[in-house]
């Protein structure tokens, strides 16, 4: 008789609520009861309110229990969880949990299913199919597939990935690079972290395909220092992929070379901006570069460089495996494919929801998220990270699509969604946005460096009712200078949360609604 497989995640969001203790208790309890179990440390399904989510393999499929604490383990075994028996923490078959069943998981298809560093698991679940197809094509063939897919940069700026790749492919240089931006510093986002901790070979495969397409033989993954588990897992996966011949001097036995290494960041938020990141990898202060030259022409160490975010590169394997046309079938308008939305903050069912573009925030907040965690009414939702606008309820039915959001002065960005209930003070959050910008500004351009500090002061004067009308006017003026005069999105988009808070929640600033304001 074979042992019963028990899946206990190793994602750091599971470890942060005691998954290691749960696994140790499962092993000890099973041993003392003479039960034959095999514990597999899988990635997370992305239903974080259920972590630690324990799954048991049964003849009908995996049965889920959660959130499990180590003190629940004995009771679960008593109830017969190893045969999928009912329990107060039971959720039936994992695949039938509505939160998962309603998703369209293309990029995250393996998430929660496989052991992240097992090459055998990766291969058995469709891994390397994209790379194998890519090896049959020339660079232009790969780039065309990416162009056909409609894939746009998932890091926030939404620039068409294929056009960037084509520029690097056509650039003439002895050395080119592929750099993965894994400096996921935005609050409300964790899809990059999940990918690196949960399906690292997918990112390796995407980067290798990028290298082959543009003729780059070296790649860097710039990972934030706040993600120690992601760094460890990526390093282990790179080592395994090198040994197995998926990286190195002869990829899958061909003449293609690609070497990959991890660079650990050091806690500067602005290094998520692509040119600051390049400076940092080069060993300098992460100060933003003026563009042009574009990094695609003069990037890392002055050479042509493809820079994409984790999810962009992680979307490449399925595009090459199933074709650009397959991927393009998802989504709406010019927002094609899927986006892993991340439900965070004050939300009952926080987690990862991969869906095609075009659904609404309301669907995400209530059909998936189940409303606020506190049970109080949801007041404001920040979409797209700390530089994204606060979206009020009147806009929750707009489809999540880059252009539709831009039309109301908001951004879809990387799909991070932070929920605040009615206890939030929007003037305080606006002040925080300016404060954070002052703390993290690289200092190169004046609107960002000085404007953010002045912004904090002006908001303080408004909330203390000092020359209110004049200071509101001054704040708008300052925001306009920052939007139009900053070198990068740090200073250029900090006004988004500030102005959206002021326009949609003026009462929190103690001012009248401005009828002319649009965003």
């Amino acid at each position: 008789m074979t042992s019963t497989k028990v899946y206990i995640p190793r994602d750091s969001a599971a470890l942060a609520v005691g998954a290691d203790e749960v696994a140790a208790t499962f092993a000890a309890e099973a041993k003392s009861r003479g039960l034959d179990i095999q514990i597999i440390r899988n990635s997370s399904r992305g239903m974080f309110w259920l972590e630690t989510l324990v799954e048991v393999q049964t003849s009908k499929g995996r049965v889920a229990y959660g959130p499990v604490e180590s003190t629940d383990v004995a009771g679960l075994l008593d109830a017969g969880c190893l045969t999928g028996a009912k329990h107060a923490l039971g959720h039936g078959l994992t695949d039938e949990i509505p939160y998962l069943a309603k998703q369209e998981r293309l990029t995250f298809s393996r998430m929660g299913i496989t052991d992240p560093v097992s090459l055998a698991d990766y291969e058995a679940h469709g891994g390397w199919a994209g790379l194998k197809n890519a090896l049959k094509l020339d660079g232009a063939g790969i780039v065309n597939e990416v162009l056909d897919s409609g894939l746009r940069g998932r890091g926030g700026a939404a620039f068409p990935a294929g056009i960037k790749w084509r520029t690097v492919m056509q650039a003439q240089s002895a050395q080119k690079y592929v750099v993965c931006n894994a400096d996921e510093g935005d609050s409300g986002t964790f899809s990059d972290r999940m990918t690196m901790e949960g399906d690292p070979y997918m990112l390796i495969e995407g980067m290798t395909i990028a290298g082959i397409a543009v003729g780059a033989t070296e790649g860097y993954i710039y990972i934030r220092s706040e993600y120690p588990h992601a760094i460890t897992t990526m390093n282990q996966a790179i080592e395994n992929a090198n040994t197995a011949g998926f990286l190195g001097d002869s990829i899958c036995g061909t003449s293609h070379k690609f070497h990959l290494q991890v660079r650990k960041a050091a806690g500067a938020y602005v290094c998520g901006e692509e040119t600051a990141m390049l400076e940092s990898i080069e060993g300098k202060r992460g100060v933003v570069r003026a563009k042009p030259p574009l990094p695609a022409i003069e990037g890392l160490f002055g050479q042509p460089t493809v820079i994409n975010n984790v999810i962009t590169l992680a979307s490449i394997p399925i595009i090459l495996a199933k074709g650009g046309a397959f991927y393009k079938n998802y989504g709406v308008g010019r927002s094609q494919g899927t986006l892993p939305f991340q439900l965070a903050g004050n939300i009952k069912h926080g987690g990862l929801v991969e869906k095609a573009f075009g659904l609404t925030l309301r669907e995400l907040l209530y059909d998936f998220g189940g409303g606020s965690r506190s049970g109080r009414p949801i007041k404001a939702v920040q979409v797209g990270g700390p530089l994204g606008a606060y979206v009020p309820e009147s806009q929750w039915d707009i489809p999540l699509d880059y252009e539709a959001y831009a039309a109301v002065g908001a951004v879809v960005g990387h799909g991070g969604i932070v929920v605040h209930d009615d206890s939030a003070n929007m003037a305080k959050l606006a002040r925080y946005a300016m404060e954070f910008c002052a703390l993290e500004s690289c200092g190169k351009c004046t609107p960002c460096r000085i404007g953010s500090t002045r912004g904090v002061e002006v908001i303080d004067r408004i909330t203390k009712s000092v020359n209110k009308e004049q200071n509101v006017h001054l704040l708008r003026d300052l925001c306009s200078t920052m939007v139009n005069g900053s070198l990068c999105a740090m200073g250029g988009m900090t006004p988004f949360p500030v102005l959206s808070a002021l326009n949609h929640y003026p009462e929190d600033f103690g001012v009248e609604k401005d009828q002319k304001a649009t965003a």
Partner: protein
Amino acid sequence: MNEKIQQIISKHRSVKGALLPLLHAIQDEIGYIPPNSVDDIAKNLNLSRAEVHGVITYYHFFRQEAPGKNVVQVCKAEACQACGAEELMNFAENILGCKEHETTANGQVTLEPVYCLGMCASSPAIQVGEQIHARMNTDKLKKVLEKIGGTK
């Protein structure tokens, strides 16, 4: 010059863009970047001391003096704010008797703010060393801090 630092410098000096990996290696080894190592690092990487100092002081992660025995980071970013991060930080400051960026009188805990640990769906979160704790509240935080001997 510290021999360990010397070894780390020789190991990294030929790496492309060596400065950050080198500084990480030194901090991993001894907990901070000793100011008297700047000269040696600069010479070996063919940089000016100002460039090395500039990098050390630019990045929040690098320290120039030894931290307390445990570094406790409390996330202050938006997703944690939405679930009580401010209360958590105030509580930590009170119970530890020190402010952000400071170390407790007994040298057990250095308290730092952090802006996102990627636990945004299980907020608020803190990190002690490399151990993250999510879905925190003041009771749980008190237990964690007591365990590492940081409370007043």
